[in-house]
């Protein structure tokens, strides 16, 4: 009897050792507030899943994108979970670089709870390649105290002409208050993110149905003219190096009367630790001109798994946890309802405690549901995307055009010259990439 038990000891020890063997998964993510919360709360995940340890690589968005793209395209296998957006997901899904994620989801995950536009944005040919972590659109931020003092009222859906009027009335640089802050820093995800929505709502489009660049059209001219005039007359100095962050700092320190940018900044504007205007800010829809479809943008940061990962099963468990309803409730418990990741699930917006803690929730939901990346403007387009064009070449195109628009804003060139050079640059790139001869 003893002899037999001794033989059984070895496989038992082996089994115990293997069972306790830890899998380490490495996740690459952006250093935004919601992801930092996810990092902190991942200790909960590790407690519930003692066989998994999560290693974090946290970088700024542009650096992260370059790093992660280099790795996935060369099959470097450095990461098991990637944080990517609605821009990359369809492109990489098409190339077969990402694992498919709409199959074998646990019961209770409730994929139908995910907002449709977000889900579509993360799919290719109907297959989901990333699970959404948070979603956003854009809207208008404005200062209630300044509007009241000037006797102005912000409509629920302002037009760009309204905004121009308000900016003029509220622009008091001698008091350190600027009429309007809009992104000016060059970059496909910086100034061009905003300007694309402006162009689309003015009725312009990036490309026609045969993929010919349209930057020399009257709609582009009108939109950029409007932008340059508005910001030069009523914006803060130095705007050409102000991206999302800098504008956010300006608005939070009370320097701007209005700001049109991402909905995710709203919860921070309410936080007195992050903003001096916590009790003086309100919101309205993003300004519209001719075409309402593309006046606000649509973006989601989502978690995906490269097919070259060695730990697909564990990675799936992690991202299913991080994008679940339970996770949202966890954040509500630890950080309050105002801090839960917004814009992904309808159930979040049906939760009365969330709506109470986040007065901007209703507008955010409206904006996300109104954004239609497949029809960003009133004329048909061959591309998908409102604040970007979902083609690989767009990062370079967007940055080049962004630099030229910033030059026009700085007064180094006229709008006409800038757009002509931009049209040339985009044509060169598109021709080289083979979209047309």
């Amino acid at each position, binding site marked *: 009897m003893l002899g037999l038990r001794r033989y059984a000891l070895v496989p038992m020890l082996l089994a115990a050792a293997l069972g306790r063997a830890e899998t380490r998964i*490495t996740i*690459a993510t*952006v*250093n*935004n*507030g919601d992801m*930092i919360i996810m*990092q*902190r709360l991942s200790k909960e995940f590790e407690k519930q899943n003692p066989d998994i340890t999560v*290693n*974090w*690589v*946290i*970088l*700024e*968005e542009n*650096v992260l994108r370059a*790093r992660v793209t*280099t*790795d996935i395209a*060369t*099959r*470097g*296998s*450095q*990461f098991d979970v990637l944080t990517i957006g609605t821009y990359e997901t369809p492109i990489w899904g098409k190339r077969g670089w990402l694992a498919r994620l709409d199959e074998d989801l646990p019961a209770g995950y409730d994929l139908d709870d995910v907002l449709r536009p977000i889900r579509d944005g993360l799919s290719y040919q109907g297959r989901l390649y990333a699970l959404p972590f948070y979603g956003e659109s854009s809207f208008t931020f404005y200062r209630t105290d300044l509007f009241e003092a000037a006797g102005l009222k912000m409509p629920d859906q302002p037009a760009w002409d309204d905004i121009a009027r308000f900016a003029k009335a509220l622009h008091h640089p001698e008091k*350190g208050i600027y009429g309007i802050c809009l992104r000016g820093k060059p970059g496909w995800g910086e100034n061009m993110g905003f300007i694309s929505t402006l162009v689309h709502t003015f009725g312009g489009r990036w490309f026609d149905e045969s993929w010919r660049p349209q930057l020399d059209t009257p709609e582009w001219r009108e939109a950029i003219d409007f932008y340059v005039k508005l910001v030069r007359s009523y914006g803060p100095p130095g705007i050409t190096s102000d991206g*999302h*962050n800098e504008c*956010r*700092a300006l608005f*939070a*320190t009370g320097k701007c009367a209005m700001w049109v940018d*991402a909905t*995710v*900044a709203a919860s*921070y504007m309410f936080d007195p*630790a*992050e*903003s*001096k205007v916590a009790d003086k800010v309100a919101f309205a829809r993003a300004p519209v001109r001719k075409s309402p479809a593309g006046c606000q943008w649509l973006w989601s940061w989502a978690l995906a798994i490269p097919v070259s990962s060695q730990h697909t099963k564990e990675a799936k468990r992690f991202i299913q946890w991080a994008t679940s309803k339970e996770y949202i409730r966890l954040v509500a418990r630890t950080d309050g309802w105002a801090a839960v990741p917004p814009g992904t699930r309808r159930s979040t917006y049906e939760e009365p405690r969330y709506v109470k803690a986040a007065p901007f929730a209703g507008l955010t939901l409206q904006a996300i549901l109104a954004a239609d990346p497949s029809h960003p403007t009133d004329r048909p387009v061959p591309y998908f995307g409102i604040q970007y064009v979902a083609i690989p070449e767009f990062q370079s195109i967007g940055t080049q055009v962004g630099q030229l628009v910033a030059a026009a804003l700085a007064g180094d060139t006229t709008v006409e010259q800038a757009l002509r050079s931009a049209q040339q640059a985009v044509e060169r790139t598109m021709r080289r990439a083979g979209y047309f001869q």
Partner: protein
Amino acid sequence: MKRTLRNKALFTAAAWPVALVIFFPIFWMLVSGFKTEVEAVSTPPRLIFRPTLENYAAVWQRADYVRHAVNSVIVSVGSTLLALGLALPAAYAMAFFPTRRTKPTLLWMLSTKMLPPVGVLVPIYLLFRDLGLLDSRVGLLMVYTLVNLPIVIWMLFTFFKEVPREVLEAGRMDGAGPGREIASLLLPLSLPGITSTALLAVILAWNEAFWSLNLTAAKAAPLTAFMASFSSPEGLFWAKLSAASTMAIAPIVVFGWLSQRQLVRGLTFGAIK
């Protein structure tokens, strides 16, 4: 006597304002680490404020400072030692036994640094992937050695040429072979130069932010990756960035201060003559 005291006072009055102006951005960074985020970016800029440790706490809690710091130390000091080991004999040979090919060799060595790293990222990444060196301290250490070697050789070469030949020749005439010549004559004489070189190599490796971000993931990430995670997120971050940066340069400043004393000690040789 009075003249030297007057000169000393004059130089003090000239040098200190310059030093303070040059140091000001760093001073501002140090101070901002103790402000709240909103205070850090508001005007008018405040010198008097209630200091808080919340940024340091947030930074400490969020990222594994110790692991990153250890990686930085291993990779920077390791690569500097390796580079010195390779460079000392080479610089010695080139400085004291120059040939026709010395000049072109030196130039060629420097030219290996002329290719912008971003242009060669993908080839190196592919190479490292195939050699299994991605996200490894060894890999990063090797890269830093190679990246700094030309600088170290150049600087050692320069400092060696400053050594007065007479002293070495006197030693040679006393029968010292090259080994003893290097160890007991050359090294002490050029110690300030070697220390400066080592200090600069360590700093260059410590602050190198391209390869360290692109070739590492979670295991081998040094302090530059730690810093990068506090840089430009969505939202106000300058106070936390200042705190993180202070934590990142603290080890280097201590090292720099210690080697300063070496520099001072080595300098007294000039008076011995």
